């Protein structure tokens, strides 16, 4: 009797293994990829202005003692529209939001800002995602909190919502 059970053991193990594979293959896996740059200095970059009316951005700007938000977005990015009102509120509270527009064009950006409002003090263009790659950012929208010394304090992946305001303000050293 005991011997019979042992003979079935390899088959049982194989079935368990296949069950694990099956679950692993069918699980909806699309998890956020956290940037390894959080806690480190903002990588060196200088980017031209994406729009004629607003200046571009560079790393040097972030070292002037004033904490800022660095928002990676694009006019073609549908969820980005949803966070504009929240960024506008933050702007109203005295937060400077620097935009990095990924794979964008001046007319499309212009239209985006006219339609949704403009929370940005500056917008730099990142046509080849070089800044995005240097930041370890894997999509749009993403928002980085940069302290006054040019260090990355936090990466917020996805749309910034109303509920994120208190935490962002705290990290930016502002009273709500």
């Amino acid at each position, binding site marked *: 009797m005991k011997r019979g059970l042992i003979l079935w053991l390899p088959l049982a193990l194989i079935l368990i293994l296949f069950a694990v594979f099956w679950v692993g293959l069918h699980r909806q896996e699309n998890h956020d*990829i956290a940037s390894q740059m959080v806690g480190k200095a903002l990588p060196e970059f200088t980017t031209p202005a994406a729009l004629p009316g607003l200046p571009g951005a560079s790393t040097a700007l972030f070292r002037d003692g004033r904490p800022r938000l660095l928002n990676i977005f694009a006019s073609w990015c549908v969820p980005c529209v949803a966070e504009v009102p929240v960024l506008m509120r933050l702007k109203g509270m005295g937060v400077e939001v620097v935009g990095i527009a990924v794979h964008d064009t001046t007319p499309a950006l212009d239209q985006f800002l006219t339609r949704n409002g403009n929370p940005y003090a500056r917008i730099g263009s990142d046509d*080849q995602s070089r800044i995005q790659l240097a930041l370890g950012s*894997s999509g749009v929208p993403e928002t980085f909190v940069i302290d006054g010394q040019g260090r990355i304090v936090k990466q917020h992946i996805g749309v910034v919502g109303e509920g994120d305001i208190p935490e962002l303000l705290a990290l930016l050293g502002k009273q709500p």
Partner: protein
Amino acid sequence: MRAPAALLGALLIAAPAIAQNVAAPDYAEVSLSDPAKEKQALALMDSIRCVVCQGQPVSGSNADLAGDMRRVIRERIEAGESPEQVRAWLVSKYGDWVSFKPPLEARTAPLWLVPLLALMAGLWLLVRRLKWDRLKGTRG
């Protein structure tokens, strides 16, 4: 006859000038001129995960960001970096997850140990079985 020859001559003279006016290649889609380096770059692209289309390597994705990653990989290899240096740079940005080649550490050790243990268990079972058969043979 003479006119086409003159035209051809003019073209031959003009060719280098035309070539110089062509913009620098966009390495997102264009191969490196050195075949050995291109081979290294392609091998690396096969083992780097596209961060927007997570199940695919950057070599097989149409996403803009995958093209941008291919461009950076080719540029860095063209500039003389080794594929593993480029991989390390990407890992320093996105973590181990960006690489399809997991590093050997305590957390990932089972990936190497389990097949080894399974092989040893199989050999042990085989040896035991053979010995058992021989014993039975001598008896019968």
